[in-house]
């Protein structure tokens, strides 16, 4: 697949403060690429530079073969942007908002009306088309905000933390629509500080912190950096003694650590499949009842922790 976005040594400084510090990455056509990092990591600044809103201090980025510094108009025609903060006119209806923004992208006439209907269908607000945006819930506004970015069918869509501050149901709808758009062939650059979203959506992930891209790759490639360590979580009955069970389980070969929190035991194990049978057996021998069990494989949270020494939401 051809690269639709190429970023080379991109730097953005505000006076003495360096918001983006020499990041480089590429996105190939048809993939979902997530920039994962905590608040203030430089995600929004990166999007702002790539969408031609801010000039880079140095470095270069090419989108669909156009330079963001030299061919801004061509870049803007190729991209769609869903900003982190809602950027809509509250006193206009959903239809009027979409119509206005569609015309800003050169759409008009029947093609515009038809496309607005498609987008309203996609974001699930067809029955609210004529209602003023100010009457919408936060989640509905978010969906209109996304709809505006999709109107002109951009080749590359920038989505900057599109699920911040909304209810789980709306978040679910947005994540599903991102997947649907990608299935239709749209390339997506998605920024988030929610590890779960990056894990669910992304073909590849770039982890950004303090303006630097500290890791880049598929989820498998990234978790391999942490090493193969699974976590086995055991929930036991409230009548049983967790400390006694922990004492029994620690000697098992392959268990490297056991932590107890209330009636939950957390076992760190290199290969969960090799310790599962002895753990259940020991519990049964000691007369303890395992109420439920969870197996956690290494995730992006662990990768971030491994690389920075901090949790993602710090």
């Amino acid at each position, binding site marked *: 697949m051809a690269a639709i976005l190429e970023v080379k040594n991109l730097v953005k400084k505000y006076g003495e403060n360096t918001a983006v510090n020499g990041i480089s990455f590429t996105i190939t056509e048809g993939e979902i690429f997530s920039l994962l990092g905590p608040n203030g990591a430089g995600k929004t600044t990166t999007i*702002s530079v790539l*969408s*031609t*809103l*801010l*000039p880079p201090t140095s470095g270069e980025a090419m989108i669909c073969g156009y330079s963001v*510094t030299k061919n*801004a*108009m061509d870049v*803007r*025609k190729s*991209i769609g*942007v869903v*900003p982190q*903060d*809602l*950027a*809509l*006119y509250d*006193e*206009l209806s959903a239809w*009027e908002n979409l119509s*206005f*923004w569609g*015309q*800003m*992208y*050169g759409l008009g006439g029947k093609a515009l009306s038809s496309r607005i209907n498609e987008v309203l269908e996609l974001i699930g607000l067809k029955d609210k088309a004529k209602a003023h945006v100010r009457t919408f819930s936060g989640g509905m506004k978010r969906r209109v905000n996304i709809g*505006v970015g999709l109107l002109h069918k951009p080749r590359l869509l920038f989505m900057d933390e599109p699920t911040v501050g909304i209810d789980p149901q709306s978040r679910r709808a947005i994540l599903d629509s991102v997947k649907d758009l990608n299935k239709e062939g749209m390339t997506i650059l998605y920024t988030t500080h929610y590890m779960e979203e990056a894990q669910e959506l992304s073909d590849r992930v770039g982890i950004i912190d303090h303006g630097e891209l500290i890791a880049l790759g598929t989820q498998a490639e990234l978790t391999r950096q942490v090493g193969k360590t699974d976590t086995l979580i055991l929930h036991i009955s409230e009548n049983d003694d967790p400390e006694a069970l922990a004492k029994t389980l620690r000697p098992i070969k392959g268990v490297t650590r056991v932590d107890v929190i209330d009636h939950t035991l957390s076992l760190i194990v290199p290969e969960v499949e090799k310790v599962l049978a002895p753990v259940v057996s020991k519990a049964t021998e000691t007369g303890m009842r395992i109420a439920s069990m969870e197996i956690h494989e290494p995730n992006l949270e662990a990768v971030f922790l491994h690389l920075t020494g901090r949790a993602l939401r710090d």
Partner: protein
Amino acid sequence: MKKIFLIGWKDVKLVFRDKAGLVFMLVAPFALTLGMGLITGNLGSSNNSVISDIPVVIVNQDQAQIGDTLVAVFQSDDLEELVDVELSDDPAYARTLVNDNEAAAAVIIPDGFTESILAQEGASQPGGPVKLEVYSNPTRPTSSGFIQTVVAAFINQVEVGRIGAEVIITQLLENGYIQPQDVPVYAEKIGAEQAILAGNQNVILVVGITPTGEVVEFNPLAYMAPGYALLFLMYTATNAGRMILVEKREGTLPRLLVSPTTATQVLSGKMVGSYMTGALQMLILIAASTILFQLIWGDPLAVLILILASVFGAVGWGMLISALIKTPGQAASVGSAMMLTFGILGGSFFDLGALPDWVETIAKITPNYWGQVGFYTLALGGGLAQIVEPLLALTIMGLVLFIISSRLFKQRGLIEAK
């Protein structure tokens, strides 16, 4: 061009859907005019005036029936509270009083004025035209305009009488009731009666004469209504400037700037939106006051052109605010202060003639001043030719402010995405 209009039209829709904004834009100026109309008793009538004790110097070199009658009109009980008459024999002295701002106007009735209107002995037709001079004080446009109107009303009455007399005498001659040698005697007699009749007209029902000769009444509300309309036009203009900062804060401005729309198109669209909003506001206020207060604003075309020029000047100031100020809150504060200051300076609250000269000089930077001068001139019967100066001043004001604002926007990167 289409995008510029779309951005502008979107702004117009947003403003007219903002109920609080509409109160300021339309309800407040209308309520103020209504209130002032009730207080001064001028609502729907024209029998009173808020203007009083206008100093006027009259030089009567005519010393004949019509000149004397005009002097008598100014000294009549009807005008007693309105004008403060000083009589003089010296035109130069009268002009000096005006130049020194001690008089709002000098009315110089030339020698032979009556003769120019009435046929004299030995002539069957009136004498040639003689110029009656109303030397106006430009720093007191309202007061001097009033004096001009009184004179114009008197002359109009005399002219009507003269034409009537000519018709009567011609018919008497044709029917053989009088002989040609009797014409001067009859003309003088009829003319004197007409002059007295003209003097007896209620001149306080001030009338202006339009260039087409159409007679219009002047209602003092026609001074207040444009004053308040211009005052709240400044609100609209400064608020529209603030809207650029609001759009920046709300994220819609950055969103516009990442669409295939140039920064120049965005800025032009915002200006067009402000302009259309201001023009609509003025048109609505003028239409409503015409219908409800029976105000006569004057020549419709000239009024329309003056509206467009006034809005242009006002929007220029709004743009300058948004180019200089960083936050919508600051812009609102500065805008309110500017609206009130310009309203006071520009004569929205009282006649500028009551203020010192230096204040009026400063007032010329305001669109309120020029708009007020223009609307007043039109209400008194003037046409496009009489408001060239205000139109030019407002247009130049708007242009200069737009150029300065555009440069500031560019320098500060407020609107430039890259």
